[in-house]
Structures are given as structure tokens and as C-alpha cells.
């Protein structure tokens, strides 16, 4: 067997046994332990509960400090912890809720507590804004409930828990007092908050801040829209905001890129981090109180010293065609989307004739695995993804040549293998501060000037090269035998097409995200295929549909407040559907 086939298998074989063994050890050791075992979802909750539980219980968080709950992958070891605990407590929002539901199903409902039920009942938090703990006094109001659930599994401990709760209550009031005093240092007109998510709402209400805006409203979602981003930028400029804050949990996400780009556009500073769900012992934030003090100090320091913003719009216009492009970042995002989709649809047109349409999928997943590996070894994401993409392209074509398996089978095998490698690596490490979903949905509102430059240069290079070899490529994809017989260097063309596919996909992947990339390779060529009789016509229509959809997608994103890349693809799919419908009626005549 070839090393290119062996390597993924070897990686799988190495990676799989570790979580399983670890799970076995955890099971064996927890049997002999003393006292109550309480498992919670996030570190900040673990710290609060452990203050009440004291010596009588051991409280652990499933998600470790420094890791985003969105990237957490469940391992057998953690499943064992959830199953064996005496009590499982979760809040009940976004991806954190998924863990709660999982616990409920494996524990058959016994000893599982969803805090949002009681929080909503008491008017302390909602599903859209569950972050009740950023206001210490809201914690005070649920202490009796927490004492209740602990006492239910450990009735003898009630007195002890009540005493601890009373002590915690006092500490929280002192914390509240301290925050009030510290916040005085911020000029009143500067008590303005801009964050990635709406995480500081209850803090703002308690301490007299105004939440000017955030990139995405609901926990668990990650698709910014052109409308929400432009709207946030407008609000920043109108309210004279001087600083935007980044949550620690968003440190490695696309949403962080979005807020950095907005801030650059507005000429304001971004400051990190505000700790919300996670703690960061390595940065001196090991407890809930330390977290609140660190957040408050950050606000005081940044907001009292910040300079006035120097941000500006490109022009003032409410003409509906121009309005979305008042800011640089929208122009950049739109250009990146147009160029990336044009390159994808051009290369995709040849791939579709060759029967490689689904190849894009395998390549993109390969790139994903490369990205995860690059993250762990600290290499460039782009190069990691590109190397893995080329690796997938070569292994698919070499397996196809060696075996008699059909290309679709080989592609599917490669694609699930690469996806599994990503998941195994992520679960082995307990998650990452990069969120895979964020890379999958890289967004046109988060295109930095460097990203724009790279996308433009590479997309234009791909387009120029493809057009230059287009006529040879066309003969090759239509009739490889005659191409070879006519003296065309088919081996070179084969690998050129593979290389172009990898380069185009990986470039687009980082600029416009995974789904729009794969779709742009297939959907515009598919629609053009139905609508064309001639090769030149096919290629021109394919690229025109892609460019038209990209522009329409941006307008839809702005005016309908939806995601730009996905809407662009829906426009292409709409053209495809219309073409199919027109074709049908043609045959019926």
C-alpha cells in the first residue's frame, strides 16, 4: 500500500485508543471516591456551585477552562463522569444545552438540573440571554434553589449548604459593592458596551451601562449578516463608542474577526478579554470573583482612558443600491465573495464535466483536517489546509488509479476519513479555542484587507491560468483518450486540474466559508449546464451566475438581515430550479 493511503489509517489507529483507555481509568477510580460527585457544564458554574458544596462534594466542569463550549467534543471518559455523578447541573442555552440534553438521556432524567427553568420562572434570565451570573445579585437570588438541589441528593448536608450559601451571599454583596465603586471611575457618557455576543446585558443593567450593540444576538448562533454588522457600525459611530470588547470564549472565532474589522473601520480599539463562561487560571482568573474583578478592571481601564474615535464612512447615501457599501469592509467582503465564487464556478465547470463535482466536498473536509492539525502544531492555517487539500486530491486520484473503485466511492471514503481525523483530534484535546463551525461559516463581513488581497490575487491567478489552459482542459474532460492521442499532455492536465481545485477551494474556504465554497463549485455550473449548448456559453454562464448570485447575496444579506454567502448560493440554486422547470416544460411541448 501507498503511504498516502496508510497515513490516514495510521493516524486513526493511533488516535482512537486513547480516549477509550482514559474512559476506562476514570470509571475505575471514581468508584472508590468519597463524598458527593457533582458535574456541571462550564467552569464558572462549577466555581459557584462548589462554593456552596464546600467539602461535602466534589464539583467538576465538563468543559475545561480556556476551551469554548462550542468546540467541546464529548469523549467516553466524560460520558462516564456524567453517568456516575450524583448530580448534573447545566444552564440550558446554545451548545451548552446539548450537553444537558445528553446528560438527561444517559441518566434517564435522574439528578439533572436545568437552571434556566427556575431562572425564567423568577425573571432572572431568558433563553436568549442566559448569562445571569454576570450580575452577582442575580446569583444571590438562586442560592436557595441551589441549596435545595444539593440537599435533595444529600439531605444530611442541608445545614452545611445553607451556611455556605449565606457566606457566599455576603461575598457576592461585597463584590457588588466593590464593582459599584470601581465603575464610578468611568465617565458617565462612556459607560457604553460593544461586545461579540449579548453577554454583558445584566451587568450593564445593574451598573448603569448602555449596551450599544453586539455582532450576534442569540447564544449558539454564529452567522453574522451584512445588516447586523453595518447596523452595529452605525451605532458605534452615532453613540461615540471608543472601545469594543472581546469575550474570552470568542478569542479564536470568526466573530472576533468580525468585531476587529468593525472596530478598525470605526477607528476604535478592541480590548480583550471579558470572561463569561470560562475561567483562565493561567491568566490569574481561577474563580468567579476573580473573573468579575478582572472584567470590571478591564472596563474601567479601557473606558476611562480611550480616545475619541476617528472612524468614518466612505460616503453618506440612502440610495438603496449604494447604502450597503457605505463602509470599506462591505466593499472588501463583496469583492472577496465575487472573486472567490467566480474562481470556484470556473474551475467547477470543468470539474462538473469531468464528473468530479463532489470532489470539492472531500477537498474541503481534507482542508479542515489540515487546519486542525495546523492549529495543534502552531502552523499557518492556510498552509495546513492547502497541504491537506493537495494530499486529498493526490490520494483520491492515486486510489482511483490503483483500484477499480468508482471515483464517488473513493471520494466519499476520503472525505469521511478526513472529517473523522478532525473530530478525533479535537476530542482528544477536549476542544479548542478555534471553533470549527466558525471556520465552516467564515463570513464575508469578516474579510480583513490581507485576506481580501490574498483572495483577490489567488482567485485572479486561478481564473487566468484556467482560461489559458481552457481549450486543452476542455478536450481532456470531454474525451481523455483523444486528448492523449492528439499529443495533449494529459497527466499534466489531470494534476493541473486537481491543483486548481485545491487552491481555489482552500482560498475561498477562508474568505467566504465552507458551505458557499463547495456550493459555488457545483451549483452555478449545474444551472449553466442545463442552460447551455456550447462550451464557451457554458463557462460564461457558469461564471455569470456565480457573480450575479454573489452580488444578489450581499444585497439580500443587507436588506433581509440574512447570511450573505448562504443567500448567494440560494440565488444560484433558484436559477438552477428555474432552469430545470423550463427544461421540463420544453420536453412536455
Amino acid at each position, binding site marked *: 500500500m501507498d503511504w498516502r493511503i496508510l497515513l490516514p489509517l495510521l493516524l486513526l489507529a493511533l488516535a482512537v485508543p486513547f480516549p477509550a483507555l482514559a474512559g476506562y481509568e476514570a470509571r475505575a477510580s471514581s468508584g472508590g471516591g468519597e463524598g458527593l460527585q457533582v458535574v456541571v457544564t462550564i467552569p464558572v458554574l462549577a466555581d459557584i456551585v462548589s462554593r456552596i458544596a464546600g467539602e461535602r462534594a466534589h464539583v467538576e466542569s465538563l468543559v475545561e477552562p480556556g476551551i469554548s463550549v462550542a468546540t467541546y467534543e464529548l469523549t467516553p471518559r466524560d460520558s462516564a463522569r456524567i453517568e456516575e455523578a450524583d448530580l448534573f447541573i447545566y444552564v440550558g442555552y446554545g451548545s451548552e444545552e446539548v450537553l444537558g440534553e445528553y446528560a438527561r438521556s444517559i441518566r434517564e432524567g435522574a439528578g439533572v438540573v436545568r437552571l434556566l427553568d427556575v431562572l425564567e420562572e423568577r425573571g432572572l434570565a431568558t433563553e436568549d440571554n442566559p448569562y445571569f451570573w454576570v450580575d452577582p445579585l442575580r446569583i444571590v437570588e438562586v442560592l436557595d434553589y441551589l441549596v435545595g438541589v444539593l440537599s435533595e441528593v444529600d439531605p444530611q448536608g442541608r445545614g452545611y449548604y445553607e451556611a455556605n450559601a449565606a457566606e457566599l451571599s455576603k461575598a457576592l454583596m461585597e463584590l457588588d459593592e466593590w464593582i459599584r465603586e470601581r465603575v464610578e471611575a468611568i465617565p458617565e457618557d462612556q459607560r457604553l458596551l460593544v461586545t461579540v455576543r449579548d453577554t454583558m446585558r445584566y451587568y450593564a443593567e445593574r451598573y448603569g451601562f448602555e449596551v450599544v450593540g453586539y455582532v450576534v444576538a442569540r447564544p449558539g448562533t454564529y452567522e453574522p449578516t451584512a445588516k447586523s454588522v453595518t447596523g452595529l457600525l452605525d451605532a458605534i459611530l452615532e453613540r461615540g463608542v471608543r472601545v469594543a470588547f472581546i469575550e474570552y470564549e470568542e478569542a479564536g472565532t470568526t466573530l472576533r474577526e468580525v468585531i476587529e474589522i468593525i472596530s478598525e473601520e470605526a477607528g476604535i480599539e478592541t480590548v480583550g478579554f471579558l470572561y463569561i463562561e470560562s475561567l483562565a487560571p493561567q491568566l490569574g482568573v481561577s474563580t468567579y470573583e476573580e473573573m468579575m474583578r478582572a472584567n470590571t478592571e478591564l472596563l474601567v481601564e479601557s473606558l476611562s482612558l480611550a480616545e475619541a474615535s476617528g472612524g468614518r464612512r466612505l460616503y453618506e447615501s440612502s440610495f438603496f443600491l449604494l447604502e450597503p457599501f457605505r463602509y470599506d469592509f462591505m466593499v472588501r467582503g463583496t469583492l472577496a465573495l465575487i472573486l472567490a465564487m467566480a474562481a470556484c464556478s470556473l474551475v467547477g465547470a470543468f470539474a462538473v*464535466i469531468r464528473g468530479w463535482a463532489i470532489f470539492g466536498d472531500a477537498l474541503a473536509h481534507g482542508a479542515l483536517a489540515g487546519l486542525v492539525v495546523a492549529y495543534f502544531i502552531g502552523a499557518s492555517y492556510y498552509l495546513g489546509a492547502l497541504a491537506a487539500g493537495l494530499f486529498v486530491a493526490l490520494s483520491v486520484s492515486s486510489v482511483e488509479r490503483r483500484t477499480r473503485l468508482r471515483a464517488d466511492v473513493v471520494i466519499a471514503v476520503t472525505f469521511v476519513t478526513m472529517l473523522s481525523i478532525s473530530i478525533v483530534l479535537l476530542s482528544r484535546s477536549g476542544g479548542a479555542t478555534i471553533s470549527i463551525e466558525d471556520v465552516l461559516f467564515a463570513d464575508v463581513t469578516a474579510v480583513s484587507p490581507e485576506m481580501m488581497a490574498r483572495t483577490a490575487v489567488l482567485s485572479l491567478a486561478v481564473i487566468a491560468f484556467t482560461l489559458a489552459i481552457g*481549450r486543452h482542459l476542455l478536450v481532456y474532460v*470531454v474525451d481523455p483518450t*483523444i486528448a492523449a492521442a*492528439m499529443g495533449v499532455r494529459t497527466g499534466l492536465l489531470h494534476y493541473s486540474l486537481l491543483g486548481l481545485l485545491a487552491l481555489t477551494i482552500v482560498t475561498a474556504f477562508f474568505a467566504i466559508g465552507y458551505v458557499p465554497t463547495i456550493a459555488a463549485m457545483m451549483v452555478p455550473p449545474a444551472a449553466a449546464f442545463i442552460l447551455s*449548448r456550447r462550451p464557451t456559453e457554458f463557462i460564461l454562464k457558469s461564471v455569470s451566475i456565480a457573480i450575479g448570485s454573489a452580488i444578489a447575496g450581499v444585497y439580500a444579506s443587507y436588506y433581509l438581515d440574512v447570511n450573505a454567502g448562504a443567500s448567494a448560493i440560494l440565488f444560484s440554486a433558484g436559477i438552477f430550479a428555474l432552469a430545470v422547470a423550463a427544461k421540463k416544460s420544453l420536453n412536455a411541448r
Partner: protein
Amino acid sequence: MLGEAKLAVASGEPACVMDGVTVRYSPGLPPAVEGVSFRLGLGEMVLLAGPNGGGKSTILKALIGLVRPESGRVLVLGRDPVRDVGVRRLIGYVPQISELNIHAPLTLWDLVSMGRRPRLGGLFRLSREDEEAVEEAVRLVGLSDKAFLKLSELSGGMLARALIARAFVQDPVMYFLDEPFESIDAQSESIIMELLVREKRRGKLVLIAEHHMGDLGAVDRVIYVNRRIIAQGRPEEVLPRLGVPGMVGG
């Protein structure tokens, strides 16, 4: 280019030579053809006959340089087609229809134009002269009114005629055809045969690999292969001896 070819023949060299050629696709497998030797001259029409799997396609591919022989020598106009890509351009190769990807946004006209590929400029633009050549070829195979139908809209016979027309616009020195009469209608068969006979009279070599053939009137020579060469000679001598009377039509 044609002048060069004539020169090679004038000096007594045959157009194609196979000398003890053995081709094996995989090391463990028996060879597809073994010890094959023959010579072909310009102005000849030769039928490469034999059962399915007997090595006819392999011989054609070796002559075009798509397959490298394990041993033996292949010469086309005195050159090795595996290494000399230029000599391949003098060959009008007509593959089996099944090797063609008909699910492409391509009209019959575009398919025939591909024969002019080495001369194509721009993306796919043809010169005036090229357009005339394509028009003429399409007319010769009787498909002028079908020129702008998509490949998927053509019948098997029309596709076969289109492939011949594509070879014709290459203005080759020799034609190699892989089962051109496989499951096509009688009209298409006679149009193709007519064109090939015309080309033969213009001094071109025509080599047809076919396991079934109706009209052998124009064939000068038959080479019968079943892994090895079983017989070769004039059709009326060779075919009765092999006990394949079905092949002698008319």
C-alpha cells in the same frame, strides 16, 4: 507535414511497423498481445480483425503511443509514438463511442472542432479556414442539419459519423479506427465507409479494428489477431481459412 510522411514512404519505409510487440497491462497478468509483427503502407486499407478481448484495441493504442510495449518495437513514420508526441498529431484516431463523455455541454460542431485543437486560438475560437474545414467535414458525413445538436441528442450512428469527421478535420496521414461500426445503422456505416475509401484513394493509411464487418470490398488486407497474429493476407484468402464465414459479407 504530409510531405515528410511521403518522403519516409518513398525511401521504401512502411508507414507503421510493429516488430515482435508484447504488451502487458499488469505484471501478474498474461500479456494482452504477444510477439505481434506487421507492416502497414500508405494508401492501404487494413482490417484488424479478431474476437473481443483479442488485443485489437491494444494494438491501436500501442501505435498511437498510449501504451508502452513490454518488448518489441513500434515505429510510426520512423518514429517512436510513445516518446514523439509530434508524430501522434499525424494520426486521426477514432475511439469507441463509449469512451466519449457525451454528458458535456458540447454540440456536434464543437466535437468536430476539437480536431483542430492544436490550431485553436483564444478560448475556443476558430479561424475562417478552420471553420470551413469543420463545415466541410460535417457536410461530408451528412450531418449539416444536426451540427448544433448537443451530443446527448445524437444517435449512435450520428456520433460515430461525428467522430470520423473530427479525425478528418485533423487532416491526418493515417486513420486508426476502434470499432467504428459497432451497433450503428446501415446508412451511417455506408457514409463512413465511403469517406474512408475516399481518404485511402488520397494516399492515406486506414486501419480499422472491427470484430464484425459487412462490406469488405474496399479492404486490401486482413490481420487476424487473438493475442498473437493468427493469419494475415487478402480477405478472400484469410477469412475462409479461419472459419469465420460470417465476416465475408456481400
